C-alpha cells in the first residue's frame, strides 16, 4: 500500500530506509538544538514508554496471528493477515522514535541498555527483512524459473535418481528407478518398451520400439560413468558435491562432449539429463536466495521476543524505584 509494486526495487528500498532514518533522526534533530530532551522518568517519558510497550505487544501478536491464521472474526478487516502485517511494518517504524525519545537517545543502565540494544537490533532486522522482501522475490522469479519448494530441493532432486529406502544403509542405498536411470536404460539397454514416454523438453517424446540398444560399447560405458560419477552426486547433494556441473559453462561443455560420442537419436534424452542438472543448479541458487529471504525471520523473532521479555522486566523494575 505504501510501497507500490509498480515502483522499482531501488525506489522501494530507498523509501524504507529513508522512512526509518527519518523516524530515528527527526526527534533528535528537533530536540538537540533546543536541548529539550524528554526525561525517561518524566510524565511524557513514561507515557512514551507505555505507548511503546503497547505497540510492541501488538507487534508480537503478529506471531500468534500467523500461527492461527485460519481464525476469523468480525469485522473481517481486523482479521486480515496481510493488513495485520502491513500495520506491523508501519508501527514497527513508528515505534522507533517513540522508544528513542523515551530513552533520551541513550542506553542507561545495563538492563535498559540491553533492552534498547535488542530493540534496535529488532528494528534493524525487521527493516532488513522488509528490504530483502522488496528485492529478492523478483530476483527469484527471474533467476529460478523452475523453482520448487526450497525446503524440498534435495528430496525433489534425488527423486530423479530413485526412491529412498525405508532404512538407509550402505547396502540399502536409494534404488535406481528414477528418471535418470530410466533414461540411461532406454539408451543403453535392448528392447525399450514401445510407447514409453520420456520426459524431455517440449513435453516428452515417445520411444520407438527397437531390437538393439541405441548406445553401446564404450560410449555407453562413458555415459554411465558420467551419470554415476558426476550427474547423480550433483543431483543428490548439489553444490556440496563439488561437481563440475555447478558451473553452467562447465556443464554445457561436459554435455557437449557427451553428445559428440552419441548418435543424434540419443540427444533428446541427453537434453533431458542436462535439464535436470540445470534444475539442480537453479534450485541451489533458489536455496541461497531463500536463505537471504527468510533467515532474518528467526533472528527478528528471537531478538524481538528477548527484547519484549526484558522490556517487561524493565517496566516492573522501573515501577519499583522510579
Amino acid at each position, binding site marked *: 500500500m505504501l510501497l507500490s509494486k509498480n515502483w522499482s526495487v531501488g525506489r522501494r528500498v530507498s523509501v524504507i530506509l529513508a522512512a526509518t532514518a527519518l523516524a530515528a533522526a527527526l526527534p533528535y534533530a528537533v530536540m538537540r538544538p533546543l536541548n529539550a530532551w524528554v*526525561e*525517561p*522518568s*518524566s*510524565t511524557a*517519558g*513514561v*507515557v512514551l514508554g507505555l505507548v511503546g510497550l503497547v505497540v510492541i505487544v501488538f507487534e508480537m501478536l503478529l506471531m500468534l496471528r500467523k500461527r492461527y491464521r485460519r481464525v476469523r472474526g468480525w469485522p473481517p478487516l481486523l482479521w486480515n493477515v496481510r493488513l495485520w502485517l502491513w500495520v506491523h511494518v508501519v508501527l514497527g517504524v513508528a515505534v522507533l522514535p517513540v522508544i528513542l525519545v523515551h530513552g533520551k537517545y541513550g542506553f*542507561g*543502565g*545495563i*538492563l*535498559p541498555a540491553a533492552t534498547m540494544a535488542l530493540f534496535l537490533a529488532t528494528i534493524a532486522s525487521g527493516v532488513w527483512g522488509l528490504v530483502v522482501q522488496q528485492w529478492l522475490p523478483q530476483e527469484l522469479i527471474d533467476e529460478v524459473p*523452475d523453482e*520448487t*519448494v*526450497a*525446503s*524440498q530441493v534435495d*528430496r*525433489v532432486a534425488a*527423486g530423479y535418481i530413485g*526412491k529412498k529406502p525405508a532404512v538407509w544403509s550402505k547396502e540399502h542405498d536409494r534404488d535406481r528407478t528414477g528418471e535418470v536411470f530410466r533414461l540411461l536404460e532406454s539408451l543403453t539397454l535392448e528392447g525399450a518398451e514401445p*510407447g514409453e*514416454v520420456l*520426459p524431455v523438453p*517440449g*513435453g*516428452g*517424446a*515417445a520411444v520407438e520400439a527397437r531390437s538393439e540398444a541405441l548406445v553401446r560399447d564404450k560410449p555407453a560405458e562413458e555415459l554411465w560413468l558420467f551419470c554415476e560419477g558426476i550427474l547423480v552426486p550433483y543431483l543428490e547433494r548439489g553444490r556440496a558435491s563439488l561437481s563440475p556441473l555447478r558451473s553452467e559453462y562447465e556443464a554445457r561443455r561436459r554435455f557437449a562432449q557427451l553428445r559428440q560420442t552419441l548418435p543424434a537419436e540419443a540427444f533428446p534424452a541427453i537434453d533431458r539429463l542436462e535439464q535436470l542438472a540445470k534444475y539442480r543448479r537453479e534450485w541451489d541458487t533458489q536455496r541461497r536466495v531463500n536463505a537471504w529471504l*527468510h*533467515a532474518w*525471520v*528467526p*533472528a527478528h*523473532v*528471537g*531478538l524481538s*521476543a*528477548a527484547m*519484549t*521479555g*526484558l522490556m517487561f*522486566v*524493565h517496566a516492573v*523494575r*522501573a*515501577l*519499583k*524505584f*522510579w
Partner: protein
Amino acid sequence: MRPPRSPSRDRSDRFTGFRGYVRIPDRYATAKRMALLAALVLTGLWLIVEIWHPQAAAFHTHGELANPHAAWDHQCAACHVQHDIADLSWSNVLDANGRWHKLTCTKCHAGPAHHESVKEMGGEWAGFHDRCSNCHHDHGGRTNSLTDISDNHCVGCHRDVPHATGSDPSKFGAFASDHLEFRALRDFPAGQNYTPRKLKFSHAVHMTPGMVTTTRLNDKDERSGPLTAKRLKEAYSPEAFDRFAGLDTGSGVELKCASCHQLDAQLPPEGLGAALRGQPRAEGAYYLPVNYDASCKACHPIAAPLGKVFSLEVKGFPLPHRMERKQLTELLGGGYALGLLRAEQPGAEALLPGGRLDGVPPNRELSKFGVKVGSLAVNGMVGVKAACAKCHVPGKDDKLVAPLPQHTVWFPHAKFNHVSHRGLTCAECHPGTDRPAATPAYPINEVEPIAIRGVDSCRACHAPAGHEVKLPDTTVTRAAGVRHRCTDCHRYHNGEQPLHGLGSTTRDPRPPQTLAEFLKGGK
C-alpha cells in the same frame, strides 16, 4: 502416440509420494522456534538473576555513583524510597520522576535550607528547593562532582535578581554576560571613598619606599625624610627596628603587602595568638584582619601624653590598643598617679610592692593627689582621643572610636580563595594598593575607596574561552575559559548565614549513624 506432458505436471510429479512435506517444519521454522526458546531462556535467566543476585540493582543504575556515595552503588534503597505495585495509583502512575526522586538524603545530610524566605515566596519554584536531586545529580560516574551544578538550576529563581535589586531591569543569565557589579562596588564605585570604612589608612603612603615624612616623628627624631629602621628605633623603640628587619633597604623602609596582610593559613605573628601555634590552620582562603600590635605599633605606638599639673610635669607612658573608655580612664589614672608620685614625692615609692610603709600621706594630701590625678587623666584622655583619631573615625556617644566593620570577607554571599589566585600580584585585583608612581601628597588621611576591581576583572579568566571582556582600564581581552558557573562562587545552603562553612552545626545530620548503619545507607 500420447500427448506430451505439461511442465506443470512435471512439477507436481516431483512430489509424488511425499506431498505431506508441508507438515514438516523447514529449517527456518525450526530456527524460529529455537530463537523463541533462547529468548525465553534469556528472560528467565535474567529474572532469576534479578531476584537472587545481591547486586542486581547495578543492572538498573543510570551510572556509577560519585565517589562519596560509592558504598551504595548496588543499594538503590540506601537513597531511593522503594515503591511497590500497591503504591501506584491512577494519580501517580505517570509520576515516575516524582517516585524516583523521592530520596532519603537527610539521613546523612542535614542540608539546611537556602533561605527561609523561599518557602514564604511560594510559587512554582518554592517546591523546587525541597528536592535535593533537583540540583545534586548523581549517577554521573565516580569523578562526577555533586556540587558542580549548571547555571540553569540557579537562574530559574534568580533570573530576576537584578530587577529585584532595582539596579538593572535586564534578566540574569550567565556570569560572563549578565552578572551585576559586586554589591559594594555598585554602592561605592571606583574613586568614591568607602564611607562605611571607619579606619583612615593610605596604602599609597605606606607603600612608598621610605614612607617619606615632612615632619619629625617626635622630639627624639632629629630629621624628616625617608623612614629607616634606625630612625624609627631612635624615635620609638627597639621593636621598630625588629619590625622592619629585611625591609629596610638603607634608603628607607619598603613595605610589601605581606608586611601587614597575612593569610589565615600562615603562622600567626610572634607574640600574637601564641595559643594558636601548633594548631591546625585554615587553608588560606582569606586574609586575617590586620593587627595593630603586629603591624602598626612599631611606627604608631600609643602613649599617654605629657601631663602637666601646676608646675609639675608627668611623663607620658605607653598604652595598650583596643581599650574601652572606662578601661582607658583607669589606665590613664593609674599611670598618671604613678608618674605624679614619682615626680612630687619620692617617698611614695614605698607604696610599691616591697617598699616601706612609713611614708603614707595623710588623708588631706591624698585628696589633693586625687584631684591632680583626675585632672591629668581627663587631659590625657583628650590627647589619647586625638591620637586615636589619627587612624580611627571618632565614635558616637561615649565610644572613643567608631566600630570597624568586619571586612575579612568582602563578598559574604560568595566564596573566594586567595591561595588559588596567589599567582597574581595583589594589585591586579586590588587597585591602588601597590607602590605609587610618585610620592603621594600629604596628608592622606581619608578612608580609601574599595580596593577591589570590578567583576570584569574576574571575567578575564572566568568566562567562556574567547568571550570578549572589557577590563576596567577599558582594554578588551579574550576570556581564558576558566570555570564560571554560579556555584563556582556562590553557596546555596544556609544562605542566611553566608559566612558559615561546611562545618556549621546546621549541617549536622541527626541522629548520627553507626558505621554499620551508615554502610547500609542509614536508618
